């Protein structure tokens, strides 16, 4: 049975009612690509129809427009949140299944080919030399889990490892963990990509390779917990890796979950004032995917002087940042447009800054601001939390 036989079922069951196009009860746009490009084929319902058209043989993967529709999706799962017929992630599963078929048929977007080549050569999607992987931690004196044991391993992931503007987030994260007395180590230069981006663009073999490698590495190192600042990485480790059916002898936590725990256990305390009015952007992979909505808010609320206000589209009804699933690489303008929409919404709350818990979101927001020449604060939670200890 090929992927199409599996997705056929869901394609048929999509009634094309359009519930996927707007957040139910809020009645606000939910699908970035549909809202940006307007034609039905850019909404979830259109993509499911494309699957059906492929099965019927009236559409072909060799058609560039078919590929375009399949890859302008950030897999943010807002559609799945709204679908009354089959809630629970089936739409994005279908889209990812169709992408796997595109890859098998050799229909790859050039920008994604670059990512895959980079993975093969450097074990990261950013075309950066493998040797620089651990540079963000230089001088911090962190334990190396490939050489010794640590209770917790902090996974910086590709973006925080290589993006000089973002590396501070990883440093802040480990600083917070150390303040709380956590026995934390890193893999340093030996850390490799989580493989999640590869999965999202349809490269299952690449994904499997990295997933197997990482599980084995963490199992062998005997770590109890893997902690990440990257929401994408978290959902890939927590939700995708178990699909491989390899026993994982460790727990996977996002930094905000861990900070929340440490605060509640009294191991970490915020005492310094951070007088800032902020709004929190739920990264899709942390919120809709992993269901982690309250811990980041609890952490923010624990910071003295900080005021948290909500955007209307928040929690499971959050608008995507626009960076996910290879969209930022293949459709940079669309990715920035999506981020600008979110920044506009954040400003409307009266907040001075947007806080998030994923480097991909933060990067995209910062790029959107840079491009438009506007100024608005964008922070990772770790940055504000560290100011408070």
């Amino acid at each position: 049975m090929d992927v199409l036989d599996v997705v056929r079922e869901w394609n048929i069951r999509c009634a094309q009612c359009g519930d996927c196009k707007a957040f139910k009860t809020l009645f606000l746009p939910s699908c970035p690509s549909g809202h940006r490009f307007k034609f039905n084929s850019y909404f979830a319902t259109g993509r499911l129809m494309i699957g059906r058209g492929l099965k019927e043989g009236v559409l072909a993967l060799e058609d560039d427009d078919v590929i375009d529709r399949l890859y302008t999706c950030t897999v943010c799962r807002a559609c799945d949140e709204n679908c009354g017929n089959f809630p629970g992630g089936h739409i994005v599963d279908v889209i990812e299944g169709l992408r796997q078929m595109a890859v098998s048929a050799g229909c790859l977007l050039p920008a994604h080919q670059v990512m895959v080549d980079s993975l093969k050569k450097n074990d990261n999607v950013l075309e950066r030399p493998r040797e620089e992987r651990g540079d963000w931690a230089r001088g911090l004196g962190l334990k190396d889990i490939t050489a010794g044991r640590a209770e917790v391993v902090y996974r910086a992931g590709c973006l925080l490892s290589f993006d000089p503007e973002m590396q501070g987030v990883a440093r802040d994260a480990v600083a917070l963990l150390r303040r709380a007395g956590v026995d934390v180590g890193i893999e340093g230069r030996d850390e490799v990509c989580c493989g999640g981006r590869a999965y999202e663009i349809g490269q299952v073999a690449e994904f499997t390779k990295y997933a197997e490698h990482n599980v084995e590495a963490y199992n062998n190192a005997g770590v109890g917990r893997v902690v990440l600042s990257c929401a994408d990485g978290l959902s890939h480790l927590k939700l995708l890796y178990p699909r491989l059916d390899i026993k994982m002898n460790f727990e996977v936590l996002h930094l905000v979950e861990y900070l929340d725990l440490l605060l509640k256990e009294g191991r970490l305390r915020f005492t310094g004032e951070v007088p800032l009015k902020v709004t929190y952007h739920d990264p899709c992979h942390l919120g809709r995917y992993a269901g982690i909505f309250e811990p980041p808010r609890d952490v923010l609320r624990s910071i003295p002087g900080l005021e948290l206000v909500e955007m209307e589209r928040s929690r499971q009804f959050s608008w995507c940042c626009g960076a996910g699933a290879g969209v930022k690489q293949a459709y940079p303008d669309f990715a920035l447009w999506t981020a600008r929409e979110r920044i506009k919404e954040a400003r409307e709350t009266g907040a001075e800054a947007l806080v998030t818990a994923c480097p991909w979101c933060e990067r995209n927001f910062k790029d959107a601001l840079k491009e438009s020449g506007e100024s608005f604060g964008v922070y990772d939670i770790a940055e504000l939390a560290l100011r408070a200890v």
Partner: protein
Amino acid sequence: MEAGVKGKVQAELEKIVGGEYVSASRPDLYSYSRDMSEHEPAWPDFVVMPDGVAEIQGVLRLANREKIAVIPYTAGDNVGGLTLPLRGGIILDLKRMNRLIEFNEPDRYIVVEPGYNFGDLRRLLDRQYPHLWYSFPGAPGVSSLMSNALLMGFGRLTNVIGTNAENVNGLEAVLPTGEVVKIGSAAVTSSWANRAPLPDLAGLFLGWQGATGVVTKISVQLWPRHPFKHIRAVLVEGIRPACNLARRLAQTRVAEIIEVWTFEDAPGADKDKGSRVNEGKQQGAISMRGERTNATYDRPPGPDTISVVVTLAADSEEEMKAKQSLLDVIIRRELKGAKFRELPREMVGLIEEDLPVTGSAPLGGLTWVGSMGPTSRWAEALEKIYPIYDRYRLRRAAILAPFRSGHYGMLRLVVQFYKGDPDEVERVGKCMREILEVVLDHGFIPYKAPAWAVAEMMKRSDPGWAGLLARVKKMLDPNDIMNPGRYGDTGK
């Protein structure tokens, strides 16, 4: 369409609306070639998204010159195949035109563009005008308020106002030949407040399914949203007592809407009959999902349990109490001797939220023969229709509602079906056709009628009426470009 002509037309369309908003790409065309109903797919040649009256005029003039079909489209949720381009041509997707042109609070009306949808209005009223309301349908939030009114659709104030077409104060339209016309008071004054007492030209557009022009603005009335609301539902055994109760309640004008649901899966329906109760609340929306394939379905014997759901609204507690006691009296009197019980409170709560129905097609297919006609013949029609469902091994499902205190009413025969089984799709098609015959025999007229139902009706219609319809269509649309296959189509 021949490739050379197509290229030329595409270039002209791009000049009119901009290249970004014209598509002849296969995935785009395919995604407009089907809807949720059982109707055969049909591909357009172009999808065009205009923004503004001038752009629509440009597209229509071009289409009229080249004799290309134009199908106005907003969300494609009509459930009757009405936006399937039966003779190809241009899908005119109007979702970019989604402005609220005027909100007139003192005179309680709004003027909106085609892409303004029910979600937009619901948001606005909830947040800024909580004392005002609209007859919201169960349709998805993304479906167009204008299209619903033009289709003579209806919502949750049916016992007060009837269809939403009766709620229209006026409109503006672009004729297939490119001229712009206004209808109602806006044609003569600066106000959009009323349609009467001018000769009523709204009939040139209402009910026509987009076959006479493209409506670009519509003015509709808003209604009070009463602070006190109460839903009462009873489960009645047997069609006749349920219909009688609904009719009697309608006449008192005590309720905003009275619905009769004969779903086997309706809230509270008897689980022992092999049906499943709705899964219930799901993040604030009403869900009707559940696994219900018809492939092996045979109706279990036993009486039909029918829910009669009554929505009361009032401005004060005293008014509500008075309405409730009147309701009590009528229920006791009308159901004397009939078997009935109250619907559990938690089921009623779902209806109270008044949100669009979601998950209404769990097997991918949803279709119906919806019709309007004399409520006195509801029960008789249903008694003939049920055996048709049984014969085709489909689940009996009907929704009835009296309109304007029961002067007429809706009779909607629904089928949820699995699109992946050709046998089931065929059975559904045949079943719908047989049901239509019964419906027409009993004085009911199908609404949002698919092309085959229109054709069937035309066969039975008074030749004078049919002739006039054809003349009106010819006058407005001399080249038969607007939404082919609908009313007044000459079949050329």
